């Protein structure tokens, strides 16, 4: 099992679970990252953080610590 923070640039995966119940996790889910959602890592900022991810047809930026809460299934894609 891997996490979104571990995906390499250009890789796609499906969300398995968003861990945590706090504001950050809720926000991630509100932005459309719920189990089953497909996403692609588009890039990473010059200083190595945050990540740029494409999800549901738009671009989202999130920090590595936030991405680490998202379990993904990379095999499906």
């Amino acid at each position, binding site marked *: 099992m891997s996490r979104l923070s571990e995906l390499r640039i250009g890789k796609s995966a499906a969300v398995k679970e*968003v861990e945590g*119940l*706090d*504001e*950050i996790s*809720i*926000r*991630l*889910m*509100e*932005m*459309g990252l*719920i*189990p089953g*959602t497909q996403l692609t890592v*588009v*890039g*990473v*900022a*010059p*200083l*190595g*953080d*945050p990540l*740029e991810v494409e999800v*549901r*047809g*738009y*671009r*989202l*930026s*999130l*920090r590595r610590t*936030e991405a680490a809460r998202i379990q993904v299934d990379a095999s499906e894609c």
Partner: protein
Amino acid sequence: MSIASPTQTLTIALVGNPNTGKSTLFNGLSGLRQRVGNYPGVTVEKKIGRYEYQGQSFTLIDLPGTYSLAPRSPDEMIAVDVLLGRRDDVHSPQAVLCIVDASNLERHLYLVSQVLELGLPVVIALNMVDVARERGIAVNAELLAERLRVPVVVVQANRQVGLTALKDAIAKAAVAAAPPLVSPFPEAFQQEVEQLGAVLRRDHAKADAAHDWPRYLVERLLLDTSGYLASTQLAGHHRDATALVAAARERLKTAGCPVPGVEPVSRYRWVGEVLSGVVTRPRDRKRTLSDAIDAVLTHRIAGAVVFVVLMAFMFRCVFWIAEPASQLIDALNALLAMWVTAFVPEGQLRSLLIDGVIAGVGGVLVFLPQIFLLFLFIGVLEDCGYMSRAAYLMDKLMSRVGLSGKSFIPLLSSFACAIPGIMAARVIENRRDRLVTILVAPLMTCSARLPVYVLLVSAFIPPLTFLNGWVHLRDLTMLSMYLLGIVAAVTVAFVLKSTILRGPTPPFVMELPSYKLPSPGTVLWRMLENGREFVYRAGTLILAVSIIVWALAYYPRHEGDLDPALVAAQASQAERVEELQASGDQEALAAAEATLQATDNLIAGAHLQNSYLGRAGKFIEPAVKPLGWDWRIGCAAIASFPAREVVIATLGVIYNLGSDVDEGSTPLRDTLAAATWEGTERKVFNVPVALSVMVFFALCAQCSSTLAIMKRETNSWRWPLFTFVYMTTLAYLGALATYQIGIRLLGG
């Protein structure tokens, strides 16, 4: 249902995600007829517009852009309160206008699904259809309307397309009944909402709780795990409602719909059902121009390079273009002063107009070109979608201080002027981050500090060079002042984030909107709006403070206090000038005029010394002596609290040079260098003193405009007051340390 009488206005609330074109639509619908204010106690802007359609007047309430109507803070609660008609300061809306982005419907319908549960008629404005088309996304608006059971109007806000049809749909919806409620939640959840609602309402009927419990609020109470709603809404309930909520959540967990995850999962499932067959995307996602631009602008190397170049370009422009414009304003001020001199007789009034009003207000107007240019740049960056990329690029750096990338542009702008910087901090949604950014922005070296630095550096820092002339000591000194500002800002930000503004790290989960050509109309409008706001807010305060400081420096004016010999000399010299004017001996006339000017300046200096300001300076001398200052520097520092650049003119008067000096003028430099402690031969200024004055100016909150804007942006006097106190303390301690260490290292 009867049509409301035409005299009665219908209230419409406008909601939408950020970057949807909501402000563009708001401006398109209400044009110039809008008012901007604040909701009391929070920092949310209250934007109200008006328009007429077919003889009926409409009031449009623009609510802050949001991805979700799930309040977890007072700022976020405003939108929900307005929508549910729970506020006394705005009318309850008759309908909700919800703007969505056709190119990104999935995420936008999340908000729509919440809006549909409010129990109000809804109209959907389907915007950005051109962007969707460009990406090959087709949206069947009729089918969407059928599925949602509310009108969907296709618009293109930036071109004003579809607005009449939209107004028509709004007019019909506002007098219609709300559509039947469709809940995206599983049955078990809906039942819990029913039960909880029934209990709360029964409670409410008995207790004197302030508001009723609309269904949506009950649902939110059940879903809100942050505890915000429970702590603010359950106050008047005698029953242990908190326990009820906890029990309901426990039951839901066993039923397989755990809170809070049940909300996004249910809503996105609903969205998927609604959109199936409504949106058709090309099989292979088309690579758009926006994607191509993004690939460069967020590239690890190219993105960083472009960012640095862009920021450097912004600053160059601000200084290059603003410079001549400022000189023009300066010249106009001088002209105005001359005109006053010609028409107003010498005395209090003339002095008030010239030294108080024109000098004070004019001193700030000089910065207007710069401020407007910065507004313009920030507006363009925001409008084209680069602002969030800048935040993305700089986030890592800013997170070291506990802030996020969103604070970068506001703080960077503050290097030119803190005012646009503080106003740009509006993009930061998190209240604590936003406050910290606003509170440290004035520490950045703004351009009003430059004249002070230039004067003191050129007068007291020896022109030494190192490394074969490549490094100048004077440049190093200037650079250290900039660094001092940055280091102070970083330290203060860090301290604030770990003390009074401590809290959990806010999410940096942020949309990177697609790039758009900035629309000149929107950008110019915003620049003018911000500019006007600044002139209005700062102008009044500056005027007041300038007049106060002027009065302190003018009164009590007893001509009798002056040295009689000096007065006599002035009179005889004036006579001589008149005689020579008649005789026509130019050379002698010039000499006599110079003598008279010198005497006038001496008298002005003596007046200042006798004034309240002079006395205050003398009074605080014991306090500023440890900084290496004499009473005159103390005076100048006090006088420059309204606006720091005033210090140059005050130093000019106080050292008997008249107020027509600027930072480049040699006499001022020489006079400062020659000034001695009163009654002694000891020089006032030396390197440690000059440095201590510079450090003071680097750290002090000597800008009433900044404080006024801070009041407006935080909607309270508490924060500007706090800033004033902490910066003044910091400045004093900084200057003290600089002098005491400097004097030990360098000697007097």
